[in-house]
């Protein structure tokens, strides 16, 4: 009896928790399927209305921005390029850097370690104007390169790969060496396949991180051609239901990725097998 009681107590708490997470988003979604005048006269809605197609199609295809040059569809494309670029570049560079830190004996080991990891203490927000002026000097403002690379200058994934490599048994390298594998062969044939889960997890982590950037794209793109979805929130105009629809669509890509790949994500980040 007590067991039944404690278990239903748990379910009630969890149900309240889920409601806090789901209800606000659901209400914005439901409201986005009504007309603006209905929202203004009746407030936010719980139930779906009948303007879904009309509102979402208009938001996706409407030429917005100050110069009427960009559609939401183009912003999604830009965000996708930016997020994928950030994820690929940071996973690629971190995977290699962590390998060099863990699998080589050198007297500069401590120096190299600190050179890379002290950067975690200085997030982009703390050096945003100087980073912008560097980008301006290199003529990289208003480009995909400018959106991607400064966000990829992060050692967080390196830290995770380093932790992971350190749990790989020493015997692996010993036997690979006996088989005559050199540093490249060992990296490509042994370590990369072994790190698959970690690579997926870091890819998801950096994809979401890249997609969700707000301040940096706002600063580095003066041309509407490079606007991303999340910064577009600041720029969006139009009636209230169209804004609801844009907000709803803006969260779809990262949320879908987290839901579909959550097992890999959790497996990698917490390294449980």
């Amino acid at each position, binding site marked *: 009896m007590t067991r039944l009681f404690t278990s239903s107590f748990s379910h009630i708490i*969890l149900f309240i928790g889920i409601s806090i997470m789901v209800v606000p988003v659901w209400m*914005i979604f439901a409201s986005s399927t009504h007309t603006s005048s209905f929202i203004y006269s009746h407030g*936010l809605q719980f139930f779906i209305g009948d303007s879904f197609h009309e509102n979402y199609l208009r938001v996706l295809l409407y030429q917005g921005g100050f110069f009427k040059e960009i559609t939401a569809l183009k912003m999604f494309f830009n965000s996708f390029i930016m997020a994928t670029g950030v994820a690929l570049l940071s996973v690629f560079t971190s995977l290699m850097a962590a390998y060099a830190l863990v699998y080589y004996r050198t007297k500069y080991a401590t120096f190299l370690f600190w*050179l890379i990891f002290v950067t975690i203490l200085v997030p982009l927000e703390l050096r945003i104007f*100087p980073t912008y*002026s560097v980008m301006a000097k290199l003529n990289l403002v208003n480009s995909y390169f400018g959106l991607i690379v400064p966000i990829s200058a992060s050692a967080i994934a390196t830290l995770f790969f380093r932790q992971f490599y350190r749990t790989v048994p020493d015997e692996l390298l010993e036997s690979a060496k006996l088989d005559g594998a050199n540093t490249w062969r060992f990296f490509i044939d042994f370590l990369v396949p072994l790190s698959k889960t970690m690579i997926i997890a870091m890819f998801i982590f950096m994809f979401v991180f890249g997609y969700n950037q707000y301040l940096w794209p706002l600063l580095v793109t003066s041309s509407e051609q490079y606007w991303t979805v999340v910064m577009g929130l600041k720029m969006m105009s139009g009636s209230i239901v169209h804004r609801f629809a844009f907000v709803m669509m803006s969260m779809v890509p990262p949320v879908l990725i987290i839901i579909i790949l959550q097992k890999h994500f959790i497996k990698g980040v917490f390294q449980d097998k």
Partner: protein
Amino acid sequence: MKKVQFKSNYSQYLFLAPQLGILLIFLYWPIIQTFKDAFTIQDAFGISTQFAGIDNFLFIFDDPAYLTAFKFTIIYSFVITLITGAIGLLLAVQANKVIHGKSAYKTLLIWPYAIAPAVVGVMANYFFSERFGLLYHLFSDLWGFNWYESVFDAYIYVIIAGSWKQISANFIFFLAGLQAIQVSVIEASMIDCKSSFRRFWTITFPLLMPTTFFLIIINITYAFFDTFGIIDTTTIGAPSGETRTLVYKAYMDGFRGLDLGSAGAQSIMMMLIVLFITIFQFRYIEGKIHYN
């Protein structure tokens, strides 16, 4: 460190080159520039600069708006850490307990982690809208809520907006921490102690200390840096700059005021705060944690 390694040769630097190259150009160069900015004064057109010593630093300490932002940032990170940690832990403990529907609960609780802070801010904006905001009307019926004028009400607004998605991150990490505790430890404790409440606080919670400690840092970093998008889409610092974080104020001074010297000095102050928190965690908190 590894016992078996390769001897260092040129190939090590080939592996390091891509990351080091990016860090040097896009991170170290701007950091050096930040220090330069912080110790110089630029004229309004950015044509001439002159060495200013610590004038920029003295100036920010004299600025009441800086102290307001400092106070708000401390309160904000403390409250967010407390709220999201407590709710995340409560949900994780319950999710770890239930037998049916565990993975459904997990999925339904972690997805807000993926939503951008700026998106969360815009949504919060709708719930606190004067025209149709549910929470605005609820709170204003309860005590005359008005975030345009009352500092306390504005705090409530940005704390709710800032905490919401961070509950998910706390939940994920606490759940992983709970699942890492060995079943034998829990079983042994069940023999010794009947009260599940006491068992939690004397056995489980101390074993969760490494997770808690990690999350405190994560939450503080979140409140310091990631909430920019939330502040910028909710109160924009209203009323009269009371809900500006340090990052938000530095950005405004640099962008709107074009005062790069002050923005640089503020950035260096924040680096020192982050450094202080990091050293503090290693020195004082890590020593008191039980690892299993």
